[in-house]
Structure formats: structure tokens, C-alpha cells
């Protein structure tokens, strides 16, 4: 346990170092992971971290409270993605890190990560993209020390939107990976 905690802290410090210290390296690194940046859609939303962050945090909490009602204190928040991308955004790391921490503290629970997409893009491509989003999230958790056999993944593509309007206010909510607890 302790060893792992140190490792996480170490990783965290490393990530912080990279972000804070060396913007250039960050860019290079990103390009390795993600495909060459396709020109962003005009509506392109996301975040120099500040604006969307409060939105993102507020919404899922409401939902979870409504859905789960009482009882469960275990809470895993969804993470959000850019259009046609499946890399874990910098502003999503603290959410998925928190999820990793929760999973460590509850070593008996298993989860299913559900990848989702907004309505733009073809249904079949989005089915593949949703799988990649779920897999990115799984890979991240595994890197953080969560055992792979505790995590199953599924893609719903664009077939299960939580928001059905045709604008970015809705789309960002649908470009999402949910972390669903399937057994305790």
C-alpha cells in the first residue's frame, strides 16, 4: 500500500513537473499519444481548464445523487473528451486520479467503463471511438495500479446520449466515459 502511494505521489509530481516546467515537452508528448491535431470544429469547446471545470463537476454529482439515492458513499465521476479524440485531457486527470484512489480504497469493487460519443460522426465510427475512450480510461487506471481484471469496458458509441440537443452544451456531456460499479 505504502509503496503504491509513494509511486502515485511520485507520478503526480512528475506530471506536475511536466505540465508546469516544460510546455514544449508537453506538446511533443501529446502528439505521440494523439493523432495529429485535426483542425478543431469551430464550436470546439473545451478548456483552458477554468470554465468547463465547475460545470463538469457540478453536473455528474447531481446525477449520481439522484440515481443512487442514498446508501452508497462510493462515487466514481465520469471524464469527458474532446471531439473525435480519446486521450485523457489534462483537466480530467484529477477526476480519474480520484477514481483510481477510490478503487484502491475499495479493493473489492469491479467496474465497467462505458465509452460514449456525441452525435456527430457516423454511428459505426463512434462505436469504435467509444471503445477507445473506454480503453484509454482503463489503461490509465491500470497504469495507476488498478488491476486490469477489475475493469471491463464497453462502448455505447452515440447510442446512449445523456443529452439530446444538437449543440455543444449537450455534446460535451455525451463525449464521456462513465465508471459504473458492477460488483462489490
Amino acid at each position, binding site marked *: 500500500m505504502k509503496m503504491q502511494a509513494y509511486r502515485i505521489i511520485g507520478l503526480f509530481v512528475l506530471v506536475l513537473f511536466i505540465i508546469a516546467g516544460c510546455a514544449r515537452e508537453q506538446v511533443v508528448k501529446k502528439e505521440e499519444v494523439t*493523432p495529429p491535431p485535426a483542425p478543431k470544429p469551430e464550436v470546439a469547446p473545451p478548456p483552458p481548464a477554468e470554465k468547463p471545470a465547475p460545470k463538469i463537476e457540478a453536473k455528474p454529482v447531481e446525477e449520481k445523487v439522484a440515481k443512487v439515492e442514498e446508501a452508497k458513499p462510493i462515487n466514481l465521476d465520469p471524464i469527458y473528451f474532446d471531439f473525435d479524440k480519446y486521450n485523457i485531457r489534462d483537466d480530467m486527470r484529477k477526476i480519474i486520479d480520484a477514481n483510481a484512489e477510490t478503487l484502491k480504497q475499495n479493493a473489492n469493487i469491479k467496474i465497467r467503463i462505458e465509452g460514449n460519443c456525441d452525435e456527430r460522426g457516423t454511428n459505426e465510427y463512434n462505436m469504435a471511438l467509444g471503445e477507445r475512450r473506454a480503453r484509454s480510461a482503463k489503461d490509465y487506471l491500470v497504469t495507476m495500479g488498478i488491476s486490469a481484471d477489475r475493469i471491463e469496458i464497453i*462502448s455505447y458509441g452515440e*447510442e446512449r446520449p445523456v443529452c439530446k440537443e444538437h449543440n455543444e452544451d449537450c455534446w460535451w456531456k455525451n463525449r464521456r466515459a462513465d465508471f459504473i460499479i458492477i460488483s462489490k
Partner: protein
Amino acid sequence: MMKLWKNLIPFRITVILFIILTGAAAAIEKIYIDIYGPFIRKIALAVPKFKIVDGDQKDYETLASRIIGILSMDLEISGLFEILDPASFLEDPRRGAFYREEIDFRDWSVIGAECLLKGLIDIKSDSKKSVNIEMRLYDVGQAKMLIGRRYKVEEPEVRRVVHHFSNEILRYFTGEEGPFLTKIAFLLSGNRGKDIYIMDYDGFGIKQITTDGGIKLSVSWSPDGNKIAYISMKGGKTKLFVRHLLLNREWPISAGAENYLTPSWSPDGSRLIFSASRDGNYDIYISNPDGSNPLRLTDHWSIDLSPNFSPDGRYITFVSDRSGAPQIYIMNSDGSNVRRLTFQGNYNAQPSWSPRGDRIVFVSLSNGNNFDIFTINPDGTGIQRLTFLSGSNESPSWSPDGRLIAFSSTRGGIPQVYLMNANGANQKRLTEAKSGATNPSWSPHLIK
């Protein structure tokens, strides 16, 4: 195979070819119009009221105007004919001119009609339920009959005989089998998922095929017309199924992968081609129709999907995001010689090779939110846009003669299936689904 179809949809029509004129022979030697040219001069066609013999006018006038409606839609959507406004007609309908000798062709030439379609309904028949419908197409300039057919038919089969006659007309002018007796499979959205339905090419005769209401994607009609391959989500996996339409049975197809997407058939129907993921990466595979002998055709970290054969079976077009965003590629049918086809636009998908082999239709994300439909030559030249600023237009599927394209569009809000000519003209809505009709897949020719 064709016989099976006849059993499925009883085709109780006695086609009495009581006149065999020069029409059929002429069609072979004389192709009137090159329908694939960029500019088509349309033939001006007059379709006056049908003549009704020995019957209660009122009852049969409704039937006659229904028939005229079907004929007009068929011939208009073919892109070959301009249907003239009946208000311009000079001929007195009370004269009841039907046979060549009775028609004064000057009545029709002065209003600009080049062809005249005359119909007659004769209810004098041995069975009370059936009527005789006779239709003749005249060349106004030459005052001559081009095609004549008499059908003895019961009420529910009227649409089919009229489509049959429309096919005859198309065959006369183009020398090719028309699309008017083909069908379109599509997905109808329900509360939680989608089911497969089949309808006639003109949107009538809708029939439900699957009933489980789960998530479905990518419907593809087999070249023999008897089977449909599709993707259905079961137990969190996207699985490949082949459904036999006549036996009303379906089989899951396993080629050893976790998830499947976008099946389609080789032109001879002997192979299935699809995208499959092992360990989260989608590549293109080809197998026997039962999933045996799967062969991997692409091996790339990118998402590769939507494979589709050229009609000669030599090439495969598909989608890959290997350049960073989805684009259309072509490879040889053994997976060799992959080359990129589309360079315009950031998101191109759903390629489908035309039955003539000369064009590939695809969709392109045009303004960030919506797809539009384009065609392009297989060498990457001659790109043409078919839809403009009218919602999102997706899933283009060729009619078996290559003359029409079915697609889905959100131009009216909820997605519906539409038709258009291969050059984008005559866009027309077919479905009126409450929560959406998508993913049309056109059947091959079903009945000769």
C-alpha cells in the same frame, strides 16, 4: 432464389403480353439517353386520366389516380422524365381515346409532350376481385406505340404491376433493369434501440424484420437478395449477425474477434467483409459468410472500418483514421496497395462503390456538425457534392442500377430515409418515422 421470393410475396399477376410490338427489339439496339451524363435532357411525358370500361366510374377513378400517382413518382424519380401538368392537356377526356387510332397526337405535340402514357381499367373479369389494367406508352412525334402491357390483378398487387410497367419503360429507354421492384432495409428507432425493417423502394409496404429492440448498426443486403448482415449489440459487445429473410432465421457470425462493425458482402456473395476488434483495435477482415476462414486485411493501430467492394471484386474501399481523422482509402482486395482517396475535409466516412464501378459515394462532415453526401471517381478526381445545408445526410446506399441513392437525413428534424438521383436531383423523403429511420441498405434486383 427468385422463386423463393415469389413464394414470400405472392405474385399472383397474370401478365398478358397481348401485344408484342417493335418495342422490345428497339430497346436493344437503341439506347435513347445516357442517364449518367452530367446534364440529362428529360423526356416530356403526359399521363392523362385512365379510361374506365364497364364499371362504376367513381370506384375506379380512385384506383386510376392511385396508379397515375405511382407511375408519376417512379418516372419522375428515375430522373429521365418530366411529368407534364394535366392542366395543360387539350384532349377531351370524355372521348376516351386509348388505342393509337383513337388518339389525335397533335393534341399532345402542341403542348410539348414527347411521350404519352395511356391507361385503361377494365373491370369485366372472370373473378370479381380482379381487374384488368392496360397501359401503353406512345411516342407522340411518331404516333406509335412503344410499350403495351395488360395485367390482370387483384387490388393488393396494383402497386407491384405499376412498378413492373415502370421498369418496362425504363428498360425501353436505357436497356437496363429498373429499380422499381427493389426494396430498402433500414433501422427504425424505438425507445432504447433500433430494429430492422424492409420497405419497397418507394416507402410503401413496410415490414418489420427484427423485434428485440436492441442497439443495431450497419445493415447490408446480400447480393442474392435473401440475407441481411447487420450488427447488433448483445451483452455489451457489437456482434455480427446474418439473417435469412425467407427462412426467418438468424445466425451470429464469429470470426474470433471481440467486437464487429460494418459488414458488407463480396459482389458474388461468397465472402463477408467487416471490421473487427481484437484487443480494442478495429481492422478489416474477410471471411466466409459463416465466419470461417477469417483473413485479416489491414493491420494498423488506427480504426479501420466500413469496407466495401468494387463491383468487379478487385478493390476494397474503407475508412481509416490513420492520418489523424477518418478518411476514405482504397486497397486491393488482398489488402495490398493501400492508398488514400479523399484529401478534402477533416472527416470522411461511409464509402460505397457504385454498381457501375465508376463512382464512390461517401459522407463528409461539412460544417462541424452535419454530414453531406459526395461522390468521387475511384482515382480521386471529379468530386461532386449531392446534398447542401439540409441537416445531416448519412448512410448513402446505391440502387442496384446505380441510378438512385437512398440515405438518411435530419433535414426535417428527426432522421428519415430519403431518395435522390445519383447526381443529387429529385431528393424525396420516403419514411415518416416518429423517432427516426436511418441506415438504408438497398436490395439487389429481386424479381426479373
